[in-house]
């Protein structure tokens, strides 16, 4: 079943994420990071840039996958990912408001490319923390041509 093109532009409900020191540590260790600030117990603790994966990839897609009118299915791969950052690195104690939106649905051969944008803002100032743009490739579900469907 093909994805529903009418969903392009749809915004899903915002969710919140709290950045914690333990999660930054865990993420940095998983990547073999050596910057001591990622492992710091002090005020200098910051998160590595792709720490944003923790609150954008799975949580950002959750509402879309739960939407029965969108038509997602499990045969998929992560095609590409982009993060654009605000003015400062994330720190423990940051609270973020994250809003997913379907930015695009396109077809490449027999596959469909769904672009999910998640805009994440600091709850206290409203300033941009990070924007995530992920492309999920749904394998084999592109609509058939009229000829093929006849």
């Amino acid at each position, binding site marked *: 079943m093909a994805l529903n093109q009418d969903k392009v532009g749809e915004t899903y409900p915002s969710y919140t994420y709290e950045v914690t020191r333990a999660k930054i540590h865990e993420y940095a260790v998983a990547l*073999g990071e050596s910057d001591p600030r990622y492992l710091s117990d002090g005020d200098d603790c910051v998160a590595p840039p792709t720490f944003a994966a923790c609150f954008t990839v799975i949580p950002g897609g959750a509402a879309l996958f739960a939407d029965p009118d969108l038509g997602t299915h499990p045969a998929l791969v992560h095609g*590409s990912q982009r993060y654009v950052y605000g003015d400062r690195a994330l720190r423990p104690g940051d609270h973020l408001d994250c809003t997913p939106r379907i930015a695009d649905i396109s077809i490449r051969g027999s596959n469909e490319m769904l672009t999910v944008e998640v805009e994440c803002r600091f709850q206290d100032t409203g300033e941009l923390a990070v924007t995530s743009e992920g492309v999920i490739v749904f394998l084999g579900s592109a609509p058939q041509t009229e000829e093929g469907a006849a």
Partner: protein
Amino acid sequence: MSAIEVGTQLEPVTQPSNLTASVMYAGASGDFNSLHYDQDFAGQVSPTGGIIAHGMYSMGLASRALTAFAGGPENVLEVAVRFTRPWPLGTSSTFGGEVTEVEDGVATVKLWGDNEDGTRILRGTGRIKL
């Protein structure tokens, strides 16, 4: 940071992907797709027939090389990658990059990730503050 100009290379990062690394990344990122640690499941759905690393693990390592070059996460403006080929578990990959443009205090860096078998698993771009 001095002498950053077009052609300057990042210090490469080489990292193995094995079951421990994959489970650690799954736990850290919250992405528990069985494709990344369960051989029975991967045997049915994986493009390689085996377990493959998270794409985001490879992006994290490319970003690690970029961020070290930038002098910290506060200097990273943007990271964007395409996952061009799967990274089979049990192999190492190396991530690096090269400055392609310097303008108005911002450097654009071409990023890449190469598996030990020579396959390019990731291509991307970063932008950093100088």
